[in-house]
């Protein structure tokens, strides 16, 4: 036990990997809008339970800046059973989305916008670049049974076929041939649209 205590006391190095700053407008808001503002839920018109998750001020009412573990928002997205948000049968957010939200709260929950991103589309990866955009912006509605518009974007096969048919790009570019997506939200940032466009031109590979 003495050896154990010694190791325990000698081992208190604390470090975490360096992280990119989080941009509220491009990283957090799309997750909230696509997962919380369904009809009958936390949108600007209905404000279920008093929460409007469609804008910064509304989201901030569920946040204790600097302390994610005691924030209502974090508790809800990590709860199970009846308290879980988004409510069943919708799926809970994935771990990387939960992590983004927790990091945003921990870093002060600021309304960062017009963030500078270096948009490099030379080596676009499905897993690292395209999928996070789809997960944050589309999967909230295009999942479950039945998914909205009968389009289910929870699998690579379905995303690939939507991409190769041209529906995916047309909808996010707000072209007239498809309904504009994400629904009742501003267009995705140019960088994200360019990333998806480049990936489709590459043949929508699973890379």
């Amino acid at each position: 036990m003495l050896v154990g205590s010694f190791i325990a006391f000698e081992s208190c190095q604390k470090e975490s990997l360096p992280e990119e700053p989080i941009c509220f407008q491009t990283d957090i808001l799309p997750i909230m809008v696509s997962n919380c503002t369904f009809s009958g839920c936390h949108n600007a018109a209905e404000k279920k339970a008093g929460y409007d998750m469609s804008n910064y001020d509304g989201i901030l009412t569920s946040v204790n800046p600097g302390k994610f573990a005691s924030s209502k928002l974090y508790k809800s997205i990590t709860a199970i059973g009846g308290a879980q948000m988004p409510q069943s049968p919708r799926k809970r957010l994935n771990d990387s989305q939960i992590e983004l939200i927790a990091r945003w709260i921990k870093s002060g929950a600021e309304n960062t916008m017009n963030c500078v991103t270096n948009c490099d589309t030379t080596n676009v990866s499905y897993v690292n670049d395209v999928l996070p955009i789809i997960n944050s912006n589309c999967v909230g509605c295009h999942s479950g049974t039945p998914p909205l518009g009968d389009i289910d974007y929870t699998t690579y096969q379905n995303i690939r076929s939507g991409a190769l048919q041209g529906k995916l790009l047309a909808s996010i570019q707000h072209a007239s041939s498809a309904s504009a997506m994400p629904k009742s939200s501003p267009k995705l940032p140019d960088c994200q649209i360019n990333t998806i466009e480049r990936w489709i031109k590459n043949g929508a590979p699973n890379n």
Partner: protein
Amino acid sequence: MKKLLFTSTLVWLVAFCAIAQEGGMLDGLEDAPETEKVISAFKSPRVINQHSMEMLHKGALDFRILHRFGRIDRGLYDLFGLDQASMRMSFDYGISQDFTVGVGRSTRNKEVDGFVKYRFLSQTKGTKSFPFSLVWVSGITVNGVKDPFGPDIDATISRRTAYYHQAIFGRKFNDNFSLQLTPTIVHRNLTTSSVNANTLYGLGFGARYKVSKRVALVIDYVHAFNRFPATITNNPLSIGVDIETGGHVFQLHISNALGMNERSFIADSNASWLDGGIQLGFNLSRVFQIRE
């Protein structure tokens, strides 16, 4: 952490004093009935993932091969996860009846781990009966992947390293049922995200119910108090069957935990067992008596 260590030290000291006193009272008594150690609380020195209160015999070498497969819900195409296997191989050795050391290596993270395990108190029956066993385990894990943190972060030994310490309080209630509680701390020198705490506090539960001479049901759960994300269903829970076949113990189980060392199964992002995130796994243990 200090509090935990202090508490366990205190428990140990109090218990030690109690025994010493009892011993004093019995000195000089003749024909004292014998005191027997309670043995075989678990079939193996591991419940499923966690260390159990059981120790190896002196001179015994336990060669263990552990497999964890992919998610069962992958369906027939992946043969319910059996197409993806990750494994850990380990050698544990009993230096004395109360002291075991071990080393192992997992394919996940190419992680090497080592531990020392010491039994401070044994559950006994007879004259000097004592109600529970207390076993201390301290271990270390080292990530062996090349550039595990990307090309820009210097992967020093310290950053690759994590530690765990635990006190196992275990009791065999009767021939069939044994239960243990295991306060545990896991410290990682480096975490992948700032919202992931370096030091995790957990309470392990392990139980065995013997169904027949050779077969027992086991359950193994660690409640981690400050895991990220803090959802109870992502804590490692395993339920299994121990089958003893002359010299081998075969532990077959289902679990949501991917890892096979304490850092990995307590701290890594396990799937949720409400969400179908479970996989099959087995532990195979072969004990060789290499010294008398």
